[in-house]
């Protein structure tokens, strides 16, 4: 076990990536910003790691530069947030179709308008279908561990897909937590330098990013789909490898006091810890409640989620985003659709909360559990809207 030190989570994300022998980092300080870009600059300018650092002129160019770098065989990293991620949007599905294993941190922040720099998940949800592996973190230690693992997962020859590690803006990025960083030697053993399947070099000229006519486009979509679905197996394997080497266990769906629970709450990201405290309090009061936490958002862990919620009567799905004019939050609509064909399924309620940095306290989660008890229909609720 290494020594635990107090560190801001955004800084820790960079310190973790600095252990990963990256070759190129491209970053842009779009508002809102975390300390990731500037600390990455410190690490590289101080010569602590040997990496090229491209201070691009936009987030669109940040992901584009990473695409070029990754296509040329480099381990490429970028970090973004909110509007920056929205600006990258066009390039995200291209990167996954080109099977470029770029890794990215996203400090989850609300999307304008109105301009709001605080936490929610409205930035990552429009990227849901872009073909990226999307992982969520609950605390700083998970940010460190998953940031390192993301390279291993993305670059696996069976996967070769980009990966985004979601870190709740402010709630996580700006927190100072006691954290443990693995040693460089340990990480080097776990994650050797990238060995690309193919790369841009005159020694072996190839064409990348060719266009597809109607007779091949569907097949490329299918290939990406198969790779993304298949990545779950690799993700689980990498989690297992990590647990053996570093002692911290991860799974694609995590549970807390869920086994005998009548009512379960499903969360993603940092709200899991607060919700767990609410579960503790309600358990003390004799209520059979529990928690399910989605670590892997894409590919969606259908079987693992079904196993985790087996036997519960009510499932409250928390969403930190709303599909405006749609059926509710994006997590809930996915959960409902995977359960649709099942004979035995819980009542699924959807609560949208914590938008644009609105705080969610332990009392709020208790109130949401209570609200679920009284609710007659299954329409979604936006929690805490002021009249």
């Amino acid at each position, binding site marked *: 076990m290494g020594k635990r030190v107090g560190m801001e989570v955004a800084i820790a994300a960079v310190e973790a990536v600095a252990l990963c022998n990256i070759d190129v980092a491209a970053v842009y300080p779009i508002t809102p910003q975390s300390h990731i870009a500037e600390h990455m600059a410190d690490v590289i300018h101080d010569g602590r790691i040997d990496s090229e650092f*491209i201070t691009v002129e936009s987030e669109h*160019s940040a992901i584009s530069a990473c695409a*070029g*770098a990754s296509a040329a065989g*480099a381990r490429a990293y970028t970090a973004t947030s909110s509007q920056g991620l929205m600006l990258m949007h066009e390039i995200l599905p291209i990167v996954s179709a080109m099977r470029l294993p770029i890794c990215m941190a996203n400090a989850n922040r609300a999307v304008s308008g109105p301009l709001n720099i605080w936490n929610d998940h409205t930035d990552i949800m429009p990227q849901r279908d872009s073909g990226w592996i999307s992982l969520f973190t609950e605390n700083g230690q998970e940010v460190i561990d998953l940031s390192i693992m993301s390279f291993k997962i993305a670059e696996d020859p069976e996967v070769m897909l980009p990966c985004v590690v979601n870190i709740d803006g402010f709630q996580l990025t700006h927190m100072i937590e006691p954290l443990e960083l693995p040693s460089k030697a340990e990480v080097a053993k776990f994650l050797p330098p990238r060995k690309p399947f193919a790369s841009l070099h*005159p020694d072996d*000229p*190839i064409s990348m990013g060719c266009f597809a006519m109607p007779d091949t486009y569907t097949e490329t979509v299918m290939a990406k789909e198969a790779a993304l679905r298949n990545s779950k197996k690799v993700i689980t394997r990498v989690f297992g490898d990590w647990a053996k080497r570093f002692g911290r266990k991860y799974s694609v769906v995590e549970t807390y006091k869920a086994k005998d629970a009548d009512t379960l709450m499903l969360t993603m990201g940092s709200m899991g810890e607060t919700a767990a405290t609410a579960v503790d309090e309600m358990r003390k009061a004799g209520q059979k409640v529990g928690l399910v936490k989605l670590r892997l958002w894409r590919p969606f862990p259908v079987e693992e989620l079904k196993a985790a919620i087996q036997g519960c009567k009510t499932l409250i799905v928390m969403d930190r985003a709303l599909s405006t004019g749609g059926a509710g939050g994006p997590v809930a609509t996915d959960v409902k659709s995977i359960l649709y064909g099942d004979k035995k399924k819980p009542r699924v309620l959807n609560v949208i909360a914590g938008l644009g940095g609105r705080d969610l306290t332990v009392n709020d989660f208790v109130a949401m559990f209570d609200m679920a008890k009284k609710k007659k229909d299954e329409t979604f609720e936006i929690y805490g809207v002021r009249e």
Partner: protein
Amino acid sequence: MNPVQNFEIFAPKLVDKKEYLSAGHRACQGCGEVLALRHILKALGDDIVVANATGCMEIISSGYPQSAWEVPYVHVAFENAAAVGSGVEAALKALRRKGRIADRDVKTIAVAGDGGTCDIGLQALSGAMERGHDMIFFCLDNEAYMNTGIQRSSATPFMAATTTSPAGHAIPGQRTQKKNVPEIMVAHKVPYVATACPSYPLDLINKVKKAKAVKGPAYVHVFSMCPTGWRCASEITIKMGRLAVETGIFPLYEVENGKYRLTMEVPEKLRPVKDYLAPQGRYRHLGPSDIEKIQEHVLREWEILLNKVECMQPW
């Protein structure tokens, strides 16, 4: 097989015989742009990586599962050739330093059309040039969005008719003058900026070689005749390029560290622009007074260029 007869005799040392863009691509008949690209690649040789923007040259050359490219080639999107190139250049630098690729110079090349350079790609281009990547950016300028159906760009010349600047009764074609991107590149203090045209292949090749020799950013703006979009006969492509230069509509020059130099013969009097405008359907709506307006503008721009050649000092 090389299609040029007696090639072995008259130009063995001037032009690389090897083809880097295979025959069989899907360019239109008489395409000046693909000819420019062919010469550019011959001048660059093997040790390059090309980042190409979406556009004519991309779609004619890279339809899966075929590719005309004999050199490493990547296409990502429309506006980001310079950004993708930045990443390629950074990666080649890092991987070479770390001993993961061969220890020799490989030049990064970005290629885009006038849309991908002067309009949607201008931000990425400005960023890449400002950061000083070791990269040559080629703008293959056919003066409109030809790939998508001849829509106007900021590189479309004054009064030219396109599908989004049609020759209407109220508004006769393009309302604005062509954006001067080479000058914008000079303002970035790019060490080598040049204009070129495939009607002058040796001049083009020399400029490409000069650009390649620069350690850092270089920009070459290549006039790329487009019979399809300009509504002219496909067999007069080369002539159209020469007319553009001889009339002063597209002068050939280079700017080394801020010092301008004409690379064309300076005529006592430029040819009248009507010689260049007349064969093109995109100018068929022009009356004598319109042609006069264009003529005046070309002469004014020519004077400005001559002044730059005379007055601008190297940095």
